[in-house]
C-alpha cells in the first residue's frame, strides 16, 4: 500500500482528502496494540476483537476532529479503552451471574456456578490466574479498566483519566478501590504463600 511509508499525520491528511484506503495503513499499524489493551480490559478474545473494530470505526467517524498536535496512536488507544469500558459495563449489566458487590468472597464459587471451580481446586491445579480473573470480575467497569491501565499498561493517573474521560483524581480513586477489593478477594492466596 502506498501510504505504508507515511507517518500517521500524513496518512490522516490523505484520508481526510478522500483516500479512504489510507486508513487501512493506520488500522494495520495500530491493531495489535489496541487488541492488547482491549483484551486486558475485557478479558475476552472475542470481545477484544469487536472492540478493536468498533474503535477504528469510531475513530474514522471522528477523524475530522482529530487534532494534529496529538498522536494518533494515543488518540485511537483512548477510543479503544472507552469502547472496552462500554463493553464490560454492558456485559456486567447483562450478566445475571455477576457477584454482588458485598458478597462474601468465600461464597463466590457458589454464585459463579458456571465458571467456578473452588479455590482449593484452582490452587491445586495451579490456576491462580482463574482466581484472579474472578476477583477482577468483582470490580466495576471503571475500576477494572483503571486498574488494568495502571497495573499492566503503566499509565499514569492523568493518562487513565484522559482515557476513561474522568478526572485524574477520580482515576486514582478508582485504582485505590480496585486494589483494595482485589486484595480482599485474593487474601486466601496470601495464606497459601
Amino acid at each position, binding site marked *: 500500500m502506498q501510504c505504508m511509508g507515511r507517518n500517521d499525520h500524513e496518512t490522516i491528511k490523505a484520508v481526510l482528502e478522500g483516500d479512504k484506503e489510507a486508513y487501512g495503513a493506520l488500522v494495520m499499524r495500530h491493531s495489535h496494540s489496541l487488541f492488547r489493551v482491549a483484551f486486558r480490559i475485557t478479558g475476552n*478474545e472475542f470481545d477484544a476483537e469487536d472492540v478493536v473494530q468498533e474503535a477504528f*470505526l469510531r475513530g474514522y467517524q471522528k477523524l475530522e476532529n482529530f487534532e494534529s498536535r496529538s498522536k494518533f496512536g494515543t488518540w485511537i488507544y483512548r477510543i479503544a479503552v472507552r469502547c472496552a469500558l462500554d463493553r464490560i459495563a454492558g456485559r456486567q449489566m447483562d450478566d445475571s451471574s455477576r457477584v454482588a458487590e458485598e458478597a462474601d468472597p468465600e461464597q463466590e464459587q457458589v454464585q459463579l456456578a458456571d465458571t467456578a471451580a473452588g479455590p482449593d481446586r484452582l490452587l491445586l491445579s495451579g490456576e491462580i490466574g482463574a482466581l484472579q480473573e474472578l476477583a477482577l470480575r468483582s470490580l466495576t467497569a471503571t475500576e477494572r479498566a483503571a486498574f488494568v491501565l495502571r*497495573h499492566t499498561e503503566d499509565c499514569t493517573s492523568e493518562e487513565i483519566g484522559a482515557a476513561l474521560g474522568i478526572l485524574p483524581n477520580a482515576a486514582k480513586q478508582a485504582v485505590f478501590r480496585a486494589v483494595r477489593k482485589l486484595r480482599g478477594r485474593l487474601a486466601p492466596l496470601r495464606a497459601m504463600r
Partner: protein
Amino acid sequence: MKHLSEEELIEQYYGEGAARFGEHLEACAECAEAYDALQSDLDELKFAPPPARGAVYGERVWQSIAPSLHAFEARRRSWLGIGLWRGLSYASVCALLVAGAFLAGRLSVPKQAATTAGNNPPQAPEHAAQPQRRIVVVVLSDHLDRSERLLVELKHADAGSEEMVSPLRDEARSLLAANRICRQNAAKIDDPALAAALDRLDHLLDELANQPGGLNRETITRLQEEMNADGLLFQVRVLRSRIPEQQAVSAAQSKEGTI
C-alpha cells in the same frame, strides 16, 4: 509519627508517591511491613498475556470495517457539488409547486365555496406516510436489536449443546419473517448497505432455521466461521448505530408534516 495510609502506599507502589513517602518507609518499620505486604500482593497479580494475533490481523480488521466507511472527499463533494445542484433543483421544483398551488387555489375557490361546510378535505399522502416511516424505523430497530443478540449467542454457542442450539433455531425462525419485510423495505428506500447486510442475515437465519435434519455441531461451527468471515455481527452493530439518526430524521419530518 503519622503512618502512611493504604492509598499512599498504593501511590508509592505505582511510582506516584511523594518523596516523603519513601523517606517515611525507611524510618517506619510498621509502614515498611505494610508496604511489603502490598508489594507482594500486587506483584502476584500477573495476567495472562493476550493471545497472539497473526501478521495479517490488521489486514483482517481493515477488511471487516472498510465496507462500512465512506470516503471523506466523496462526502464533501456530494455536499458541495452534487448537494448544491440538488439544492437548486429542489428550490426550483418547490417554487414551481408553490406557484402551481397558488394558481390552483385561485381557480378552485369558487368551486370550494359551493361545497358544503361538512366536507373534510382528504389528507395529504405525505402526512399519512410519516407515521408509517416512523413505524418502519422502530420495527427495523427492534429487528436489528434481536438479530444482534442472536448473532452474539451464535458466536459464543457451544456447538455440542442441545440446550443452546434449540433456542437459536426457534429465534432464527421467528426473525426470518421480519427480516424479509425489512429487506423489502430496504430495497424500497434504496439503502444498499442495509439491503446487503439483511441479505447476508437472511442466508444465515435460513440456515439456522431450516437446516435439514436439525442443527449439528458441524453446521454451527461452519455458520460461526461464515459469520466471522463476513463481519456480519459488526455490520448489524453499525446499522443499529444509524438508527437514532434515522429516528431523528423521521421525527423531524413528522414535525414538519404537522406544521
